[in-house]
């Protein structure tokens, strides 16, 4: 069980427009969303990025998925560099975040085939995989309904299935259960555990403690773009619940007590 994902000193600064400054109630012209962040994920584990709103979780995951470029730092995913080999990285990972939408106009069935082609998967293999995944998530019931007519949960299921069309070894999910009801959320978390059993590596971001406690092997707590703590779940919660651990770290980092 070796290191499959290694992030070294990732930093990302955003320039704020006047509108954003107002929105975020700040006078700063720039915001350091990710600040010298390093961590590793081992093959076959679920790694949780835990942090409050605006901590920089989504930004970190978008850097890893090569959607945006880090100002400095480097990460390698299964031997491929996000800086120099973004296309290889993209073919190795499955990335799911709520910002990535499916085109309203098409059906899940059409989109699955389309994305399978983009990943160069041959037709026989992709149709077999489609059948399996559609059945597992109940997508087959609305496979021929246009995305515009699907409910939030249905859309999330379709997005999830399509994000792993190519059976990636590394799966990066941003807030995978956000906006889902308990039933759908359970389907998703059960699936993550199943993927781990298949030997896949999973990186999830969340601000939900219970999710981390239920599924993660290792946890990185991220506050104001910095990695405050990164350890196994076991050693973190050895003497108190995760929530208390988080509050302790938070008041240490930010310098005030809650």
């Amino acid at each position, binding site marked *: 069980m070796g290191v499959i994902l290694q992030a070294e000193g990732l930093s990302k600064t955003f320039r704020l427009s006047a509108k954003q400054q107002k929105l975020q109630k700040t006078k700063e012209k720039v915001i350091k969303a990710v600040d010298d962040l390093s961590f590793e994920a081992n093959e076959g584990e679920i790694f949780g990025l835990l942090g409050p709103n605006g901590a920089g979780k989504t930004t970190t995951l978008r850097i890893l998925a090569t959607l945006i470029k880090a100002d400095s730092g480097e990460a390698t995913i299964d031997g491929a560099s996000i800086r120099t080999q973004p296309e290889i990285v993209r073919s190795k990972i499955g990335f799911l975040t709520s910002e990535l939408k499916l085109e309203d106009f098409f059906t899940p069935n059409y989109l699955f085939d389309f994305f399978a*082609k*983009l990943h160069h998967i041959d037709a026989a293999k992709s149709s077999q995989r489609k059948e399996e995944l559609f059945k597992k998530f109940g997508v087959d019931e609305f496979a021929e309904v246009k995305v515009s007519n699907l409910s939030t949960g249905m859309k999330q299921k379709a997005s999830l299935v399509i994000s792993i069309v190519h059976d990636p070894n590394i799966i990066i999910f941003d807030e995978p259960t956000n906006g889902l009801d308990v039933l759908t959320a359970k389907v998703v978390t059960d699936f993550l555990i199943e993927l781990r059993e298949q030997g896949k590596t999973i990186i999830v971001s969340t601000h939900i403690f219970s999710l981390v406690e239920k599924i993660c092997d290792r946890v990185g707590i991220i506050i104001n773009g910095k990695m405050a703590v990164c350890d196994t779940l076991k050693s973190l919660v050895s003497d108190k619940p995760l929530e208390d651990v988080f509050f302790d770290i938070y008041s240490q980092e930010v310098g005030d007590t809650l």
Partner: protein
Amino acid sequence: MKKKSNILTVTKKEIARFVGDKRMIMMILLPAVMIYVMYSFMGSAFTNLFSVDDEYSPIAYTVNLPRPFIPMLEATGLEIIEASDRDVIQIKEYISKKQGELLLVFPENFIEIINDYNVQTSMVPAPNVEIYFNSSDINSAGAFNNIILILDNYEASLVNKFDINRGILNADLVTADDLSASIMSMMMPMLLLMFLYSGCASLAPESIAGEKERGTLATLLVTPLKRSELAIGKILSLGLLSLLSGFVTALATILSLPKLMGDAAEFMDTGIYNATDYLLLACVILSTVLLLVTLISIMSAFAKTVKETTAVVTPLMIVIMLIGLSGMFSSTVPDSLYFLIPLYGSVQSMSGIFSMSYSTINIALSCAGNLLLAFIGAFVLTKMFNSEKVMFSK
């Protein structure tokens, strides 16, 4: 391992997206329908404005009209009412109110005076005929022209030293083909350019700014799909659909032209061109569409929303209209080098093809100019898809 290119996959998806979308189909067909309706309306308005009522005989008031002129005037369909000097002011008022068409005032004993008049020896000015009419009244203007012709001929016959075109009715040897060609070469380049532009402008913003706005472009960007494949796929599919849209609009125009121009539309005969003409035209149109689509795509990629694109694209529209107009009013063929200027070259080439006087080299140059810029544009679009500033700015 060399992987199959995904350009075709993207192109097919884009076409499926538009062809299956009723709203987009409407947007493609709308200009065609509007042109047909508009031309039909304008056509009947024109016909009412310019048609001369055959039954109607214009009234000519005359003072001292010499006898020999009576049959000549009647032959042009005029009704003659003899009046006296005293009525002149009253009659002028009638004519300005369109209650009569013409007033002819001859001097008394006109025929005798002109018979006695000698240009070389006479001490008094030549006798004068006054003709009043109303140019805003089509019947009056027509009658005026006829009278001028009659009097002119009469005057010429008095001192007949030589004639021009006596007894020849069809002195203008222009063929219907030439007339077609010159009308087509004036109108078509401008029209085609506008149709192609409107086709592109109704599709590209939706496909690029729209996808960006809705977050579906990002979904494509996390797959191994190359940015260049995405750019080329978009350009090809949008180009194809714009061609289709431009074709439908052009077809509607040609079909509704008879409604607009009545009999004059006979001069717009597309049968005068041969296969080579059409082939060259196709090359020019194709390269033009590719360039237009690329330019509009780049502009839509800059915009954050479909709405914003409308504003971003406006300067381009103005430039394109000016280029189209330049073709309409230029009469000389520019130097070969000018054909290399993208879009301007297209207009000049189309103009040349329609007037059936072109050099294949110039047309090749114009296509090359368009394609070169389109190629650079595709490269720029690729870079833009790669740029997080362009794709993910908030």
